């Protein structure tokens, strides 16, 4: 069953008086449990597409439905509530809050819920356990390696058990070994925990882990292919 449906989505930005088209009439359907890789050169619109799926940007035209929700028509406040419940976002540069420990970073999305402190702790430790970094709960960002930071960021993304995991070049800032570990982790989340994942990447090795691939070029889909798997 389709979890994500983009219908004729276009996006353009205005810089001064000039309108810059980024996406042009993109239509995509992604089933629940898929691991979709989005590839394409810089400026092809991959990250913009990811931002639209995350509800942190709005399309200029077209509709985006995720699950039962038509997100392009939600208000800012409703969109924030929806993001908190349904989206887990993994950034290329991890974007952990440096003054918070690994535990507190992962707890951050849970502060928006009605969970008790004990329940929050259970959820956080479970998420840190899944990404294999429970022993680093009291460490700050500066005390972690890049790979560990990204694991904490993944734990933060999954701690609310979101409907959809979005990853924006999650291995772009990691060495090969750490990148492989992170990709294995994402693959595990997809296969073992049935998480639907959309990952933007430049890296063909990373793309190999996806179950489906989409290629974007100059804001349009140029190719759609099933991954090796």
């Amino acid at each position, binding site marked *: 069953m389709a979890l994500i449906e983009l219908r004729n989505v276009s996006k353009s930005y205005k810089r001064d008086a000039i309108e810059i088209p980024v996406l042009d009439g993109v239509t995509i359907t992604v089933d629940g449990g898929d691991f979709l890789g989005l590839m394409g050169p810089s400026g092809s619109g991959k*990250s913009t597409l990811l931002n639209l799926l995350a509800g942190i940007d709005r399309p200029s035209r077209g509709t985006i439905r995720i699950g039962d929700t038509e997100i392009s028509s939600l208000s800012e406040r409703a969109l924030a509530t929806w*993001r*908190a419940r349904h989206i887990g976002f993994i*950034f290329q540069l991890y974007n952990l*809050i440096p003054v918070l420990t690994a535990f507190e970073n992962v707890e951050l999305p849970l502060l928006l819920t009605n969970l008790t402190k004990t329940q929050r702790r259970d959820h956080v430790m479970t998420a840190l356990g899944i990404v294999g970094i429970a022993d680093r709960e009291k460490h700050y960002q500066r005390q972690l390696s890049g790979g560990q930071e990204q694991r904490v960021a993944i734990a*933060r993304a999954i701690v609310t058990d979101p409907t959809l995991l979005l990853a924006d070049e999650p291995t772009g800032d990691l060495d090969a070994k750490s990148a492989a570990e992170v990709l294995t982790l994402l693959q595990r989340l997809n296969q073992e925990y049935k998480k639907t994942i959309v990952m933007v990447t430049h890296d063909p090795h990373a793309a190999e882990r996806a179950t489906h691939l989409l290629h974007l070029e100059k804001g349009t889909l140029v190719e759609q292919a099933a991954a090796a798997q």
Partner: protein
Amino acid sequence: MKFVGLILKSARRSKRRTALTMISVALAVFLFAALRSVLDGFDAVSAASSAQRLVTIRSTSMIFSMPTSHTEAIRSTAGVTDVTWANWFGGIYKDPKNFFGQFAVDPESYLRMYPEVILTPEEKAAFLADRTGCIVGDGLAKKYGWQLGDRIVLQPGIPVYGSLDYPFTIRGIYRAGSSAVDNQSMLFHWKYADERSSPKGQVGWVVTRVSDPEQATQVIAAIDQRFANSPYETKTETEQAFSAQFASMLGNLNLLLGSVALAVVLSTLFVAGNTMAMSVRERTTEIAVMRTLGYPALTIFLLVVGEGLLVAVVGGAMGAALARAVVNAEFLGLAGGFIPLFGVNNWNVVVGIGLSVFIGVVAAVIPATMASRLKIVDALRRVA
């Protein structure tokens, strides 16, 4: 409550900057509370002044004296039941910086007119019996470590009292029974000073008790009328008006001190506002990340305001506590005996902390609005 930890962590992000902001708020509240205590001290004196007592001075200025014959003339005015008088002595105790009020008074009538000067019967009798005796307030005695029977010497500070030292024996240590009387002054026999004065027979001011406070206006008019067109014209007022006028000798204190307090608070507001804005600008990406995680704009706004509030209130509490500790410390003698109730009271502490709340909230509103209106995608792109 669950966001308090987050606010605390954010405030500790740059410890030096947070500490400096707290100190600036602390200084503002300290100055506010200290300045308020001065005004409150004067207000308390006016409020506690007796409605039955009138004060007569020379119409030109209270620094000019008038002949003792005025006291008898005033005593014979209709509606007057009692009279006493006093002179400002202005002596020096060891060093000019040891300033306190010294008044040459007519002891019997003065103590009769001012029951707020509380002495034991033995002290009172000893004071009345000793022409070179004096009584001192308990605050003053504590400040200089004086005991009953101690000998103290004052150098005359005003030429009319001659150039020879005035030795005194402390015959009593009085307590102030109301705010109309301070506990930082020294009273001694007017005759002792008058003996060495040139010219003799001069009084600085005359205090009159009226039988009916409702008739005070008529008595005031009658007294001043009696000396009209004489070389020593007088100006009579209620004690309350006299106290207020005494304060106003230092200028329009309310306006002056109020302006200083306002300037301090405003400049602190700008400093705190600028600091908060810097702090928010540095956290643009983090705020964008939090928004991505689902934090609503209002929550971000409240977190930033909460941080401003926390820093300001901690600073305000520090300032209020410091003001209370410093201004209320009797050993520092900041009031110099001029303002009986000089001290930071609970209300000023509450108002000072309230002021810090105002500074915290107002200073944070613009940065908080900036943070809550942040466009997530633009903020994330800035660092990507």
